[in-house]
C-alpha cells in the first residue's frame, strides 16, 4: 500500500496508469481536443493514447472529420477528440470550421496542440490562434527526432514560458514523450497547472478602444466566459457564425 503511494508520485509510473480504452467513451471526466497543423502526427498521438487504429499516413489532410476515442489516466477518464489538421482557424473551409467550432463550442477541458518541431514558426501561428480561444492547452512538440536530424534545437522550457502553457517534446511515432504528455494533460485538466496563455498583441489604439468597449458587454452577457476577447475580435471582423451563436444564445452552451 505504502509502496503504491510512492509510485503514484513518480512520473515514471504513468505508463502503468494509462489505460487505453478505445471506443468506450461513457462517462468521461475530461474532454481533450487534439488540434494542430496538417501532417504533424495528431492521429499518431491519438492512436498512442486510445489504442485505436485511426488511419495514419504521411500526407496532409487525411483526417477530414472528427474521430473520438478514450483513455484513462490516474483514475480519471479522458475523451480524446481528433480534429482535422488546419493551418489556421480564420477561414471558412469545412475542416477549419470543424476544428474551430469544437474548440469554441465543444468546450474541451484541455486542447492538446500538436506541432511539428522542425517547422515551429509556422505551427505557432495556429497555436497562438488556439490560445486566443481557450485558456487550457498543452503544446506537444512532435517529430522532435526529425528536428534533431535537421540540426534544430528547441528551448522547450523557454517556449513554455513564452506561451504560458506546458510544452512537451515528443516522438509519437515511437511513443516517446507520451508519459510526460499525459502528466501535463492531467495537470491542466485538473487545474493543478494554471495556464497563462499568451494573447495576441495589438498595436492599433482604435482596435484597443473598440475591444475595451465590447469585452465587458460580452462578459456581462455570458458570465464566466473565458474567451471574450476572441469573441469580440470575431464580432468586429463580422464573423457570421459567432454573431448567430450570440443571437440565439447558443454561445457557451452549444455542444456539437
Amino acid at each position, binding site marked *: 500500500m505504502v509502496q503504491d503511494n510512492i509510485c503514484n508520485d513518480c512520473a515514471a509510473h504513468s505508463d502503468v496508469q494509462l489505460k487505453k480504452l478505445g471506443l468506450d467513451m461513457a462517462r468521461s471526466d475530461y474532454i481533450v481536443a487534439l488540434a494542430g497543423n496538417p*501532417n504533424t502526427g495528431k492521429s499518431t498521438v491519438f492512436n498512442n493514447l486510445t489504442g485505436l487504429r485511426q*488511419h*495514419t*499516413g*504521411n*500526407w*496532409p*489532410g*487525411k483526417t*477530414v472529420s472528427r474521430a473520438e476515442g478514450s483513455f484513462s489516466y490516474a483514475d480519471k477518464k479522458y475523451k480524446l477528440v481528433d480534429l482535422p489538421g488546419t*493551418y489556421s482557424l*480564420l*477561414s*471558412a473551409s*469545412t*475542416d477549419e470550421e470543424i476544428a474551430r467550432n469544437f474548440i469554441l463550442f465543444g468546450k474541451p477541458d484541455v486542447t492538446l496542440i500538436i506541432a511539428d518541431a*522542425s517547422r*515551429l*514558426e509556422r505551427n*505557432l*501561428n495556429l*497555436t*497562438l*490562434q488556439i490560445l486566443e480561444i481557450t485558456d487550457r492547452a498543452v503544446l506537444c512538440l512532435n517529430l522532435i527526432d*526529425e528536428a534533431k536530424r*535537421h*540540426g*534544430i*534545437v*528547441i*528551448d*522547450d522550457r*523557454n*517556449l513554455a514560458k*513564452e506561451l504560458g502553457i506546458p510544452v512537451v517534446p515528443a516522438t509519437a*511515432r515511437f511513443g516517446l514523450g507520451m508519459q510526460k504528455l499525459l502528466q501535463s494533460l492531467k495537470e491542466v485538466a485538473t487545474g493543478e497547472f494554471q495556464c497563462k496563455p*499568451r494573447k*495576441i*498583441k*495589438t498595436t*492599433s489604439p*482604435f*482596435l484597443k478602444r*473598440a475591444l475595451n*468597449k*465590447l469585452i465587458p*458587454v*460580452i462578459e456581462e*452577457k455570458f458570465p464566466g466566459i473565458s474567451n471574450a476577447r476572441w469573441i*469580440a*475580435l470575431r*464580432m*468586429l*471582423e*463580422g464573423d457570421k457564425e459567432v*454573431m448567430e451563436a*450570440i*443571437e*440565439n*444564445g447558443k454561445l457557451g452552451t452549444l455542444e456539437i
Partner: protein
Amino acid sequence: MKNRATDSSKNLNELAKSLRWEAGENLHDHLVNAIYEDAARIANNTVGKNGDTGKFNWDRILDNLLTSRITGFPMMILLLGIVFWITISGANVPSSMLATLLIDTTHPILKSFADQVGLPWWLSGVLFDGIYLAAAWVISVMLPPMAIFFPLFTLLEDFGYLPRIAFNLDNLFRRAGAHGKQALTMSMGFGCNAAGVVAARIIDSPRERLIAIITNNFALCNGRWPTQILIATLFIGVLASPQLGGLAATGAVVGIVMLGIFFTFASSWLLSRTVLRGEPSTFSLELPPYRPPRFWKTLYTSLIDRTIFVLWRAIVFAVPAGAVIWLIANIHIGSATIAAHLISFFNPFGILIGLNGVILLAYIIAIPANEIVIPTILMLTVLSLKLTGVGEGAGVMFELTENADYLRLFSAAGWTTLTAVNLMIFSLVHNPCSTTIYTIYKETNSVKWTTLASVAPVIMGLALCFFIAQIWRIVVGY
C-alpha cells in the same frame, strides 16, 4: 425572459457593428500580421540551429527526382508499375493454394455433409453452391493481390509519396478547372471510391468539391484491381512471349490506370466548362518530409485496416449475390432459367459493343460491390455454355486453379482479345458501386449530382466500348 435575452443579444451585435468602424480598416489583415509577427518572435527566441546541417540532403535529391518536370511523370509510372508487377507476379501462387483449400477440398466436404444430414437439395444449393462458393471465390481471388498491393501502397504513402503525386498533377488539375487537392482525393480513390468521395471534404470550394466527387469513380478502386489484373494476365499477357507476359500484363494495368487519370482530367475539364463553371481556387500544399516508413507496423496496419476491411466488405456483398445467382440460375420460367432469359436478352447489345450478355448481367448483379464481378461472370459463363466438363452444374461457382483453365473457359464462351480489352475498359468506366453512390448522396445531399455521378459513367463506358468494338472490327476484322 427569453425575449429579453434575444433583445440584449441583438444589441450586442449592433454594438459590434457600430464599433467595427472604430476598430479600423483591414482588421483581418492586421490580426493575421500580429499573429505572424508574434509567432516569428517566439520562434526566434526558442529555436536554435545546431551547427551545419545538410551535408547530404536526401529530401532535396529525392524531390528533384520525383517532382521534377522531366522525371516526375516517368518516375510515377515506374513506381506504380513496380507495385503492380510485384502484385501480379506474386499473387498467382497463393491464389491457387487458397482455391485448392477452400474450393477443391472444403466445398465437397460441405456438400457431402449436407447429403448426410439430409438437407433438401435447394437449401444445400443456396448455402453451399451459392453463398459458400461466392465467399470462397472472393477470398481466393482477392486476398492475395490485396495482401500484396495494400502494404506496398501504404509504404509509399507513409514514405510521403502521395503529396508528390498531387504536386505533379496539380498543374494539370488546375488547367482542367479543378482543385489541385483533387489529386489527393483521386489517390484515395485508388484504394476505395467511397473513401475518395469523403476525402473531397478537404476541398473548400463547393464547385471544385463536386467535380472531385463526381470524377472520383475514374480512379480504379481496389474492387476492380482483381478484374483488371486477371483479365490482363489472361488475355494481354498471352499476346507477348512467356517471359514478357508478366510485363505486358503490368503494362496493360498501368495503361488502364493512366486512362482513368486521363478521364478524370477530361471529365473535370468538361464539368468545369459546362455545369460547374468557375475559376479554380488556389491552395497551398505542404510537401511533408520523406519519412522512413515503419515497415512491420505499416504491414500490420495495412493488412488490418485495408485488406481485411475490404475483404470483409466483399464477402458481405458476395453472400447475398451468391444466393441470387444460384436462384436465378435454378428457377425456370418456361423452358429456361431466369439467368438464361436475361443473358439472351442482353446478348445482342453486349456483342454489339464488344462485350456479351453475361458481362452486362454480371455488372447488374454486382452493383453492390465490384469485387464480385469476376466470380459472377465465371458462373454465368458456365451456365450459358452448359458445359459439362467444367464446373459443377447450374449456378455453381466452381474451381479454376490454373490460369489456363480460365482461358479455356473464356475461349469456349467466344471471348476474344476485344472482349478482354472492352471488359477492362468497362470495368474502369461504369457506375460506382452502391456504397459509393450512397456516399455521394450523403456528401452532396443532392439527387441531381448523385444521378449524374452514377449514370454518366455508364453511358460513357457503353459508348466507349461501342466505338472500340467498331474500330476493332474494321481494323482487326472480327
